[in-house]
Every structure is written in C-alpha cells, then in structure tokens.
C-alpha cells in the first residue's frame, strides 16, 4: 500500500502535512490481508 500525499507543493503559508484535509493510499494489500 502506498500513502500518497498528492496535494500541490506547499506555499509558505500552507498547512503542515498533518493538516491536509484529504490523504490517499492504495489499498491493494494491507497487512493482515494475504
């Protein structure tokens, strides 16, 4: 699985990475799913 932060490059006044309103991952695979 990949955690993708696909927002644009942050500008100087942009939110810190953990303030993103949307985050994405690919979920083929997630530990515990063989």
């Amino acid at each position, binding site marked *: 699985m990949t955690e993708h932060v696909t927002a644009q490059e942050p500008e100087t006044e942009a939110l810190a990475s*953990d303030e993103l309103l949307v985050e994405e991952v690919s979920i083929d*695979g997630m530990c*515990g799913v*063989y």
Partner: protein
Amino acid sequence: MTLAPDMAAPATVLAKVPGPTTSPGKLTDLFQLGLDAPICLTWELTYACNLSCVHCLSSSGRRDPRELSTAECKAVIDTLERMQVFYVNIGGGEPTVRPDFWELVDYATEHHVGVKFSTNGVRLDAAAAARLAASDYVDVQISLDGATREVNDAVRGPGSYDTALRAMQNLADAGFRGFKLSVVMTRHNIPQIDQFKQIADRFGAQLRLTRLRPSGRGADTWDELHPRPEQQRELYEWLTAHGEQVLTGDSFFHLSAFGGALPGLNLCGAGRVVCLIDPVGDVYACPFAIHENFLAGNVRAEGGFQSVWQTSALFTDLRKPDTGGACKSCGFYDSCRGGCMAAKFFTGLPLDGPDPECVQGYGETALAAVSALGASSPGDAAAVPRSSVDHSHRTSPARPRAAGGGPVPVSIGARPLTPQAPGGRPPAHDCDESPLAGFNPRPDA
C-alpha cells in the same frame, strides 16, 4: 454495479479521534485507533484444499464440517454491505472448491462488496477466466512460490506450478489484465525475484510479494524457509527500486528499518482496519493469527460480525494506542512499529518487543532468550505457542511437532489418506477421508 448507498453514520459511533473533531489527525493515528468497519477483510471460505503447501498459514487441507452454509455466507455478505466494507479478500484453503463459490462471488458484487480472491488456479479454466474478465468488481490473485517448477513444487506440491501457469495463461487469453501474481518470499525464491517479475509481465499480471510468517504450517517450516538476514536487505533494495509497480500487502514494513520507509502504512492493521473471518465463522484479528489468543468472536453469535468488529474485547484492546514497549528507545520504531504481531507470537516473542526478523538484530537476541528457556525446561510445554486449529491433510505418520521448534523433515508427494498412526491425534471430523467429502461439484458455469 451501482454506487453504494451513501449511508448515514453507523448507529454505533465509536468516539476515538484524538483532539478536536475539526482538526485532521495523522493518517496513522486514524488507522491505529481502528475504524467503525474494516476497510477490507480476509474471508477464508473453506479449509478444504487440493494442495498441502508446507507453509500454509491456515493449515488447510480438510473441510471442516461446521463451515458456514451458503445462507450463512450470504448473511455475512449482507452485514458487510450494511457496514460498507469495501471489499473482501476471499481465500481458504482453496475457495473455488466450494460448490457455491461463484454464487457467493456474484452475491457479494451484487451487494456492493468487491471481491478479490486468492487461488492456486485449480479451477481457473477458460470459462472461469472469461467470467472473471467480464467483471469489474472481482479481482483474482494466483499463488506461486517459485519461478521454476523445482522451487515452487518443493513448497506447494507436484503439479502446482503447472496449475498456476495454466490459470495465468487462461486469464491472459481471456483478456484479464492486471490480475495478481502473489508470491510468499522464502530463502529459496528470493534469488528468483527478477524472474517472478518476468512471469508477471508475460501474463500481463501485477506482481505481489508478501512476507512469510511462522503461522499455521509455516511454524513447522519457518526455520528452513525464512529469509536470511542478507536476503532481507536484498529484498528491501529490490522493493525500493520497484516502487508501486509491485504490491506487498504492506507486509514488509519491518524492513523499513533498513532506511527509508517502504510505501505503505507501516503498521499492523489487525483488529484495527482488517481482520479474518474463518470458514466456521470465527473472527480472528488477522489471517496469520489463527489462535485462540486472537479470536474475537464468531459471526453466528448474537449481533453477528458487526458486533464482533465493533465491541469485542480483543479488538478493543488492539485499538489502544501502541506505546512501543521494548522497542520504544529504538530510533527505527517509527518506521517499523515493532513489526508483525503474528511473527512475534508464533516465535514465542513478546508482542511489545522486536520482530523475530528485526533488521537491527534485536529479534535474534530475543529469540536466543526464548531458545534458552526451552532448553532449560525440556519437560515443560513448548515455549512457543501453537495453534490448535489444524485442518491439514492426514500424513502417516503424523508430522512431528517438536517443542522449541527446529527443522522438521518435510517430504513432498502424494500423501496416502490412511488412518492415523498409533499415538497420533484421533480423527476429529467426518471429512478425514477426503476434503471434498460430501461435495457435489457442479459443472463449471
């Protein structure tokens, strides 16, 4: 398939988000504390299997007479639909040997639950492949553990390589692009890693590499199959080089401690975002942890699966914040999160300590201590936990299960289904004679 209904918030709202609700949390925090429904889960449909892979995580082979009926399976699917579980990863045993397999797959997709199923390919003829190629909501994963017949069949049995390749050819011929070729990495097949990629490319498939765990029959063959330390590094480098082209089931996050984190959430999702429903309806935290310590409940109980997922004591416990335990002081804890719970458990290690394959070497130290304990008390029960859930085909004589582990001689070949040797376990099920006893396979659609 129509858009899944946009449901109101589930009746049981588990308030567990840290901080004010308007402030977005870290993704890992959200996962760590669990979700109201699994994102996806593994559902083993049957313990029956035509193969006897030596590392089978579910010790499959013989059907269990208590397996969920077709109607009970549909009731589970109804629950999953209601909970808006996005997809199920169907496996087993070999799920396609269930006579109602296609009926259940169709029922799931008709009820807004995607299906990805794992198979050794035995029933994937041209008709099955065409059926799969026609559906957007069904994905298939072919298991193969060697790029050559020799390496593969040593683990999965004679004929299994040919079965898998034939299935892949059928899928490719039917125009199904992007099905998965799934490999469990062992010390014998890591040297073949580039060849696996070539095989996947040849059939238009996507390669998936997953980690071997000492679970099920894997506990007996762990010592001879698990990667050597230098192979772990090799694997890590290869995964890093191939990025998202190759899937991993997020199962190699323990290797993140080699350096940069591998793609993925890098944490154990057991009981938090995933779980297992087994063929008799038992709900476990994870398919690699089929053991009473990780049994959360049963779907046949009052409240069904939803109640187990949302209120079981085990899952509530697993959803408590992870403080790191013995790994807290290690600089790599943030990327490896202490590794795989099942790997630790079945090698006798404490869950709040290092993974047995900790790339910093802390696992080896911990294992040595477990070994010493076993050696100093030879009359006591094994220091290493073992699951009592075993549906393996009968061998004659019974495979030795030495306390403390150690290499177990493994012979591959057709095993006669003879009565248990004296001193072995008494037959427990009606299905001892054949895993397909009582089955009436209908002609392939």
